[in-house]
Each structure stands twice: as C-alpha cells, then as structure tokens.
C-alpha cells in the first residue's frame, strides 16, 4: 500500500466530503447517543446502588415474614444477637388509614413501628434535626414523609390519629432507609416507636402486616449464622435479604426497564446504519469517475480501498464521538425523565465503558454498513476514464453473504446485549431483520411492477417520476428502507404505548368502584355495611379474606421444599408467600375459566379434598394444574384441596380479584377480614366519607382508587416520556435520512433535470416529476411501514404485554400522511437552481462530477 498517496488522498477527500457525509454520520450518532445515555444511566444506577446498598437497607441483614416470626426463629435470632458486635432492631410495617385531627383529612399510609437502634447505617435526615432520635420517647410521636403533610393539609406539631392512638407529628423525613418512588405517592411513610404500636390496636389477627428484623454485625458472624440457619429460616417462610441480594433486587427491575428502552435505541442505531449505507452508496457512486481516473493513473486496489475506507472510518469515529457527547448529555436528562423508576438518587457520572462502547459501535456499524458500497470501488474498471458507460462489475456473492451474516450476527449480539433476556433479544433481532427484508423486497417488487406498468395515458411528469423509481441509480430500496423503517419504529412504539395507556384506563365503566375498604374485621362487617348504606353508598362488591399459606403440594411439605436451593425464584415466591383466600359461589365478571370447571352449586362433600380454583399464572409458577392436591395452612388448620379449575383474571379491572378461590362452605369459620368495593362520585364526599370511616372504624383502611390510578399513571407517564424521547431519536434519524436521501437523489438526477430544462421542459414540470418520485417512494414506504408496525405492535401487545389490541388508526393515518407530505416537500425542493441558466449548471455538474458525465 502506498501510504503517502492514501494519506494525501484521504485528507483531500475528507476536506470536501466529510461535511456531506456528516449528515449520514449524524443519523447514526443519534442511535449511539440513545444507547450511551441508557448504558451510562444503568452504570450510574448500579454504582449508586452498590455504594448506597448498606445505607438503603439500613443494616447488613433483613429478615421478613408476613405471618410473624415463630418462636424458633426468634430463638435463632436471639443467638445471633448475643454474638459480639452484633445488634438487632425490629420493624412492624403495615398499611393503615391516618387522620389529621386538625384538618380532618385522612389518607392511607405505610406505617412502620420501630424497636431498636434502626437504621444501623446511613444518617436519617429529619426536619427538625434530631427528631429521629427522639422518636422512641414516652410521648407518642410520628415522623412522616413530607408528601403526607401536604396530602393531609397539616403541619409539624399537629396530631395524627392512627387507629385508636394519637401521635404528635414530630417532623418530616428527608432521608430514611428504603427506596422511595411511586409507592410513597400511594402510601406515604409514617414512622412511630414500636412501644406505641399496641395502643393503636391496628395489628389484629388476619391484618396484612410485615414483620421485619434488621441485623448489623461482622460479615463473618452473619455469614456463619446464615449458613447454619438458612434452611430452617426458608422452611419457616422467612425471607432473607442481605445487602448483596437487596442491591441485586433494586438494580434488577430498573435494569429491565432500561434494557427495554435500549431496544428502542438499538432500532435507532440500525436505522442510522441504513442511513450510513445509503449515504456511502451515493458517495461511492459519485466517486466512480474519480476512482477510474486514479486507477488509470496507476493506483492499486488496496490504495483505493484504504483511501475511502479511512474516510468511512473517520466518519464512524466522528459519529461515535458525537454520539457519545450527545449520549452523555442525554444521561443528564434521563434521570429527570424516569425519576419515579429510579431505585436510588443518582448523580450522573461518566462511565468509561459506555463511552468506549459508543465509539466502538460507531466504528463497527459504519464499517459494517459502508463496506459493501466501498467494495464497489475496488471493481471500478480504469477504462471508465475513457468511456463512461463502464459500470463496476457485480460483487462476489460470497462476500455479500459474509456481510449479511456479519450484519445479522451484529444485530443479534446487540439485541441480546441490550435486551432484558436472550429470548427478547433474539425476537427483537429477528423481527428487525424480517422487517428490513420485507421492506426491501416490497420496494423491489413495486419497482419491478411499476417498470412493467404502461402509463401511456399519464402526463409526462407522472410517467417520468414513476419511471425514476426503477431507473438505473434509483434510490428506491434504500429510501424505502429508511422511511419505512423509521415510520415502522415510531408507529410501533406509539401503538404499543397507546394500548398500554388504554389498558390503564380500560376499566371505564361508569359504575366502576373507586373506593376500596379493607381490613374490615368479621364482627365489623354488618356495622360497616350499615355505615355505607346510611350514606347511600352502594356496596358494589364484597369478599371475605382469609390468610393462609401453602403447607404441602401433592403431599410434599412446603417447609422442606423451600430448603431446596434449586428452586427457581417464581416457585419459591409462590410457595413462601402468604395468601389471601376467598370463597365464592359464582365466578366474578373479571374472571374466566381457562382449564377445568367451576364448582357446582351443591356444597362440597365432607371428608374429600375441597375443590379450589387457582389463577392460571400462579398455577404455572407452582408447577401444578387441575387435579393436583394443595394442602393449605389456614392459621394453623390444615385444609386439603384439589385444584379443579384455573382462571384467567383481568387484574386491570377494579374488582375483588384473588389468586385462590374456595367454594362456600369451607372457610366460613376461619378468622377473616372483609374487603369491600364502593363508589362515591364526588371527591369531596369521598374524602369526608374516609374521614368519617376512620373516626368510626380506626382499623379499617380505605384506599381512594383514584390515588392508585394517578400513581400508576405517573409511573406510566414517566416511562412513556422516556420511550417518546427515544422514539424522537428514531424519528430524527429517519428525518435526517430522508433529507439525506432527497439530497442524494437530487445529486443523482441533477444532470437529467438540467437536460430536461435544456430541452425546454418548464421548471414546474421538472419539479412535478421529482415530487412524484418522492411521493411515490414515501407512499410505498409509509404503507408498508404502517402495515408492518401494526403486525409488530399486535404481536407485542398480545405476547409481551398480554393486552387486547386496539390500534390508534387515526394517529397512524396521520403519521403516514405526514410522511407523504414530507416526501412531497423534500421532492419539490429537489430542483436545479432556477436563477442560473441550464448551460452553466451543466458545466458545473460536469466539473464537480455530480452528473453522469
């Protein structure tokens, strides 16, 4: 290779070409920016979680149980507490209504009663300072999340009624152990001292309570204790959280979200790659004459490839760097967009790995997409310098196949790298390849059909414009891919989002319940019913709730089974959890039987296993189906059941939905609470009702469903914004490609247009022909892209999100029309400069090499 020539030529070509190629590089930079931003945020979050893990947990170890710790567990913990340098604290946590005495407002709160020196790590920041340390004093005091004060319209120093006890609001918390987020919007935290819990009389049999023990101590001591007792704890359904497992749990869900977002970024990058390919293709076409001349003058294939390859790599590196700069900036904006989804407070930081990834991606994607057009330069015959008609020979099918394989492997690897699971990554990569293949095939087929169509009846400009789609040096396939794929990504995202949002608001029945009453003790039920009826509030649904656990499945003892370390996460969760059972004679409207049969009206035969109906996904997690036997431990009483049906439950519906349903006649005597659904139209009356209810029944909690829906909507809106921002990246990439493709087409057709002008065609006719070509291309790409997006979003909605599919047809039509309009605008601007004569422009086209010669 002649290095001096290569350097000199590359430098000279860069001088004039990089600005134009920069537009294509810009397309790719946006995709890189999206990936770098997300990757960086993931790194930042995992770093913050690692750094703050101990502080977030507040201890080295947390043990939790919904049913309360057995004496055995308490003894084991006592042994640990007796070890040197080891300390324990306990927290009782439950949801309850709180009433601000002065304002009379109520709110569901997340109550945490503390006993012991918790937290062991991380300072609690309170207003006023030192309030946390005074929490355990003899006077009942409460520390609350700031949001609660606003919601209750109260202030520090006011009185908070909690069950049957009154607490003075001693201050607010700015920082306390545990993650905050959407949860605090539904139920803000209220911290009280454990010594005052009994006075509230809120913890009663059957209440939904979490019991927690926090431990701090030397790692070796804790590890030895865990090694010795883990099996026994697991068997006793005690959930164990170490700092490591807590960090993993915090990071996991956020990582999944960002990985889904990453796929959107990846789609933008693929689109950018197509932009680079079509840009380099046009560039190469323009360089054919120059390369023929260089070959004539004696430059060899390696010199030519090295010269233009260096330009491409320069473009890739520049795009990578630009993408990284944008991505790092994006990293500063992203945390704001997804604040509610962040498990920890993060400060953006530069992640060298993400930056390196961005630059490598830029180089690799450019190489991958630019190599096929560049190889065309190696096949330019020098004879072309004498006779323009000599086109480069066709490339080797083996090289083409190798390139396609490399492209597919890259997409696959990138898909798996970004996706939350290999399966999703594989599906994404295959979907992407299939979409691109269909778009390319349709464009080719349309061009062939149009070539064959005889449009003798059509005016000249229409025939000319349509014929351009299949003429030599056409951009039909490249532009269809760019527009079609861009539209496909944007339309698919929009459709899926529309369906997810639609699902949130799906339960739009006018009589939909908006008030949930729970923890109604059995003896309170008649009084609560009367309380509602007296106020003309109809009870829409009522269900008894009985706490239970699974004692055995097909005779296999759950306690022993939980000791098995091979159990997968879902099965462990399903076996260990505390269930809320109910009984019902009839299937609810939100339920559908998918396997087996609902029970007959006759009561179950005594002495035989009772029939039971399980939610289908729960049965799958447990690995059982119709016919299997489940033994329930209903607060100490074993109840033998046999699964007779599996149900699909519409969880989106505001209804009393249960995982496990018994027939009537079995659980009636078990300790139970009740769950009531009601509807109170007016928000003010609803608030007053809640306040009255708490006054009369302090232990009964009432959740205003609109609060829940608002919280869910906030979370969804944050996600949607993040997705929309990324979709914007894709859209911007698509637009950049569209502009670039229009510029390329303009450059290709310049000479043709000038000739037409020279032959006397009016400028309007030339413009119409160009517009026809652009609009036909946009129409082809937009229609295929829209149809493909409908198919993709339908399959995503059904398989990934398990939602009914309802396409936003009006929006999609608008999007497609917008693309057509844009095509028309870009096409109509594709005309030679009218201020100058055709001859001058012809000469210019000749000497700048933009024309055909």
């Amino acid at each position, binding site marked *: 290779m002649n290095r001096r020539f290569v350097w000199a030529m590359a430098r000279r070509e860069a001088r004039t070409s990089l600005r134009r190629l920069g537009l294509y590089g810009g397309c790719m930079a946006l995709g890189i920016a999206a990936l770098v931003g997300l990757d960086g945020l993931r790194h930042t979050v995992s770093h913050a979680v690692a750094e703050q893990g101990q502080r977030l947990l507040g201890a080295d170890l947390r043990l939790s149980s919904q049913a309360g710790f057995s004496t055995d567990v308490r003894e084991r913990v006592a042994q640990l507490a007796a070890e040197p340098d080891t300390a324990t604290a306990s927290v009782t946590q439950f949801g309850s209504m709180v009433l601000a005495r002065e304002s009379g407002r109520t709110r569901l709160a997340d109550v945490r009663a503390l006993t012991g020196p918790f937290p062991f790590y991380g300072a609690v920041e309170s207003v006023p300072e030192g309030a946390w340390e005074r929490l355990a004093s003899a006077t009942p005091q409460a520390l609350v999340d700031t949001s609660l004060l606003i919601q209750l319209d109260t202030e520090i120093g006011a009185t908070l009624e909690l069950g049957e006890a009154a607490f003075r609001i001693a201050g607010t918390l700015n920082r306390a152990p545990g993650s905050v987020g959407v949860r605090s919007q539904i139920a803000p935290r209220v911290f009280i001292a454990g010594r005052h819990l009994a006075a509230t009389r809120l913890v009663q049999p059957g209440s939904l309570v979490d019991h927690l023990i926090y431990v701090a101590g030397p790692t070796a001591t804790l590890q030895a204790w865990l090694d010795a007792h883990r099996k026994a704890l697991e068997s006793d359904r005690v959930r164990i959280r170490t700092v490591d497992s807590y960090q993993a749990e915090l990071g996991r869900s956020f990582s999944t979200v960002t990985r889904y977002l990453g796929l959107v970024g990846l789609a933008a990058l693929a689109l950018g790659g197509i932009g680079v390919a079509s840009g380099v293709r046009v560039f190469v076409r323009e360089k054919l004459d120059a390369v023929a001349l260089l070959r004539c003058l*004696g430059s060899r294939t390696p010199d030519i490839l090295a010269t233009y390859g260096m330009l491409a790599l320069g473009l890739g590196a520049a795009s990578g760097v630009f993408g990284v700069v944008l991505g790092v900036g994006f990293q500063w904006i992203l945390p704001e967009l997804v604040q509610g989804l962040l498990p920890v407070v993060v400060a953006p930081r530069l992640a060298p790995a993400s930056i390196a990834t961005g630059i490598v991606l830029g180089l690799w994607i450019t190489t991958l997409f630019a190599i096929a057009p560049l190889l065309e330069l190696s096949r330019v015959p020098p004879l072309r310098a004498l006779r323009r008609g000599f086109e480069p020979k066709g490339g080797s099918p083996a090289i083409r196949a190798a390139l396609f394989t490399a492209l597919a492997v890259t997409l696959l690897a990138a898909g798996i790298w970004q996706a939350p699971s290999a399966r999703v990554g594989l599906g994404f990569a295959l979907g992407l390849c299939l979409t691109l293949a269909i778009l390319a095939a349709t464009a080719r087929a349309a061009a062939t059909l149009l070539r064959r169509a005889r449009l003798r009846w059509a005016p000249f400009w229409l025939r000319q414009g349509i014929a351009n789609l299949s003429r030599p040096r056409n951009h039909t396939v490249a532009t269809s891919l760019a527009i079609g794929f861009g539209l496909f990504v944007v339309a698919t995202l929009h459709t899926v989002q529309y369906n997810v949002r639609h699902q949130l608001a799906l339960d739009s029945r006018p009589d939909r319940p908006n008030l949930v009453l729970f923890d109604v003790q059995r003896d309170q039920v008649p009084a609560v019913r009367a309380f509602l009826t007296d106020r003309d509030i109809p009870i829409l649904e009522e269900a008894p709730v009985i706490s239970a656990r699974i004692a055995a499945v097909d005779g296999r003892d759950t306690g022993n089974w939980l000791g098995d370390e091979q159990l997968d996460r879902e099965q462990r969760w399903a076996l260990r959890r505390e269930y809320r059972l109910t009984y019902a004679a009839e299937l609810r409207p939100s339920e559908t039987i998918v396997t087996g049969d609902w029970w007959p009206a006759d009561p179950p035969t005594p002495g035989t296993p009772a029939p039971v109906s399980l939610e289908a996904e729960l049965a799958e997690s447990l690995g059982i189906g119709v016919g299997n036997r489940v033994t329930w431990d209903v607060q100490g009483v074993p109840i033998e059941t046999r699964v007779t049906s599996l149900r699909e439950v519409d969880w989106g519906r505001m209804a009393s939905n249960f995982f496990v349903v018994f027939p009537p006649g079995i659980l009636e005597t078990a300790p139970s609470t009740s769950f009531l659904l009601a509807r109170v139209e007016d928000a003010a009356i609803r608030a007053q009702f809640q306040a009255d209810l708490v006054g009369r029944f302090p232990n009964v909690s009432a959740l205003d469903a609109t609060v829940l829906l608002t919280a869910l909507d906030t979370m969804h809106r944050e996600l949607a914004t993040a997705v929309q921002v990324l979709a914007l990246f894709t859209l911007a990439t698509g637009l950049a490609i569209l502009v670039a493709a229009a510029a390329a087409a303009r450059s290709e057709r310049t000479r043709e247009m000038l000739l037409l002008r020279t032959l006397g065609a009016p400028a309007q006719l030339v413009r119409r022909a160009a517009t026809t070509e652009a609009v036909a291309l946009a129409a082809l790409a937009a229609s295929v892209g829209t149809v493909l997006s409908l198919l993709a979003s339908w399959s995503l909605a059904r398989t990934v999100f398990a939602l009914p599919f309802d396409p936003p047809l009006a929006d999609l039509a608008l999007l497609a029309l917008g693309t057509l309009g844009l095509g028309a605008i870009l096409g109509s601007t594709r005309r030679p400069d009218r201020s100058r004569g055709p001859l001058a422009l012809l000469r210019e086209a000749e000497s700048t090499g933009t024309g055909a010669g």
Partner: protein
Amino acid sequence: MIVARKLTQRYPRANGGPPLTVLDRVEFSVDAGEVVAILGPSGSGKTTLLGLLAGLDRPSEGTVELEGRDLGPLDEDARAQLRAASIGFVFQNFQLLPTLTALENVLVPLELLPRDRARTPAEDERRAHDLLARVGLEERTGHYPSQLSGGEQQRVAIARAFANEPRVLFADEPTGNLDRGTGHEVAELLFGLNRERGTTLVIVTHDTEIAARAQRIVRLDAGRVVS
C-alpha cells in the same frame, strides 16, 4: 516500445446475439520516442485500441507488449503499477479530480510513483509547480477544476500527464472538448512538452490537422487497420 499482435476486442450484446467485434486482429507497433496518431471515424475502435495499449482493459484475443513486457499475464494491480511508473494520460474530458486543486491534481501521479522513484513531498510539490508554470498556470495552482476554463483544465491535465516522467503518453482526443483556438494552444503545449522530454506519444484523434503533426498515422476503420 509498444507491440500489439492480432489484437481483437469483442463485447457481448445485451440481447444475447453474437458478440460485437470492436477491434479485429489489429497488428501495430510504436517505437520509443515515436509520435503516432490513430485516426478514424467515430466507432472505428480508436479509443478501445488506446485502452488496450495502455493496459486499461484486456483484449479478447491477441497480445500487447509494453517496453518488452507482455501485459496479458498481469493482473489489474500489476498493470496499475506499470501505468504509475511508465504511462501518462490526457483525456478528452480532462478528467481532473473535482475535489482537488490544480496543484494537487498534478501531485497525484507523483504520489503514486513506485518507492524507488519517490521523492520528498517538497520536491514533488516543486516539480508540480514547475509543470503548472510550464503550462502557464502558475497563478492558478490553488484553484479547483470548477474554477478553471476548459482550456485551463486540459492544461492542468497535460501537466499531470508529464508529472511522473512517463515513457509513453496516451492522449485520447485531447482537443475534442475545446474550441479551435484553445485546442490549437493545447496541442502546441502537448507536442512541445513531448519534444522536450522525448516521450513516446500515442494520440487518438479525428482531427486531421493534429494527426498531421505525428510522425506516423495509423488509420482505423470498423475495427481494422486500414493504413
């Protein structure tokens, strides 16, 4: 210097018919330092012959020897190397690289010289300047082709053709795209430089006035040498 034996060139037809014979068993030789004009009407095969003699294409049959070396067995890159070392070109449509200045266009053949003949970049630049001065463009070295007239562009092309001190210069209708007066000036320059440097010159033209200035005229008609 150049020997062509039974040189035949056929091109396949797009409709699949019998191939089109552009050159038919042409026998031809050029001595070192000789100036030969290839004359003939359009479509007689002049440019095809020039392309084959310069090693830009492979003949369907026959051989071409350049400085005693058979071009047949050489692949495209080896022929390119030979062109870089020994051949210069002047084209009808000038063929300047549009993104390079006049000076840079003249520098290209110097940068492509084989290592044993390569000089320092400063020396090359001086030489390119001298050549541009010789063709009367010392004031236009930094101009791009689009900023030059047709005659000026062809003068840059002539300077470029002599830059690598070629032993053979091939000129394809060098005045074909120029008006009569400019064409005359350019022809003067081409022949003058050729005389100064003793280069072998093969010039394809259908301008009898230019052909008359050659030492020998080879006439082609329908792919055959007629005189």
